[in-house]
């Protein structure tokens, strides 16, 4: 059976990304393997240490920068993560200095907010309502 093991996000700087995704967002480091100038660097949710890994992938390819910039300009999140309570996370992360381009909005079945991951991406956090 096919399943999702790893998904990735392109980051400008792996060290900075690791700090943001762990210290600020709350993921924990899973794998950190030297790969030439870069690292095979993954994080997981502390709730699911054996769950899907998020690969912090260097956005080195020349196509990555214009792609990311175009998404950010239109406010489009690169990916979305689940949280228990978007509004509580918004308060916690805002207090930690995180920049949101979209405050929590109730969209019916889901409440979402969009933050800047400081590594060139917008990230959505989402809570299913009800």
């Amino acid at each position, binding site marked *: 059976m096919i399943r999702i093991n790893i998904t990735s996000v392109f980051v400008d700087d792996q060290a900075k990304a690791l700090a943001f995704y762990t210290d600020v967002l709350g993921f924990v480091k899973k794998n950190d393997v030297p790969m030439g100038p870069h690292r095979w660097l993954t994080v997981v949710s502390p709730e699911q240490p054996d769950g899907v890994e998020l690969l912090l992938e260097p956005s080195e390819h020349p196509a990555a920068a214009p792609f990311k910039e175009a998404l950010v*300009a239109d*406010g*489009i999140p690169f990916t979305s993560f689940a949280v228990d309570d978007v509004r509580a996370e918004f308060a916690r992360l805002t207090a930690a200095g995180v920049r949101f*381009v979209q405050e929590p909005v109730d969209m019916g079945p*889901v409440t979402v907010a969009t933050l800047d991951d400081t590594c060139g991406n917008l990230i959505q956090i989402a809570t299913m309502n009800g």
Partner: protein
Amino acid sequence: MDAVFKAIGDPTRRAVLDELVDRDGQTLFEICSRLTMKHGLTSSRQAISQHLAVLEEAGLVTTRREGRYKFHHLDTTPLRSILERWPIREQP
């Protein structure tokens, strides 16, 4: 004034204005999400961009760039021209 009437003569554009009243200063993505999730409007992002251009031409929407982000803001002052032309009379 023609531009204002053209702008508000379309239900999608009126929905955009409604959502900007709800929260001012939205990205294109947030506007598109709200139209889809709250109004069942499934217009393409390009179509919404064009609607926003019409609203901007009428002065009802302004855009603000902040670093790498772009936000859309509501400006209702062009609507005043309608009331100036046809003032609301108090009923005796």
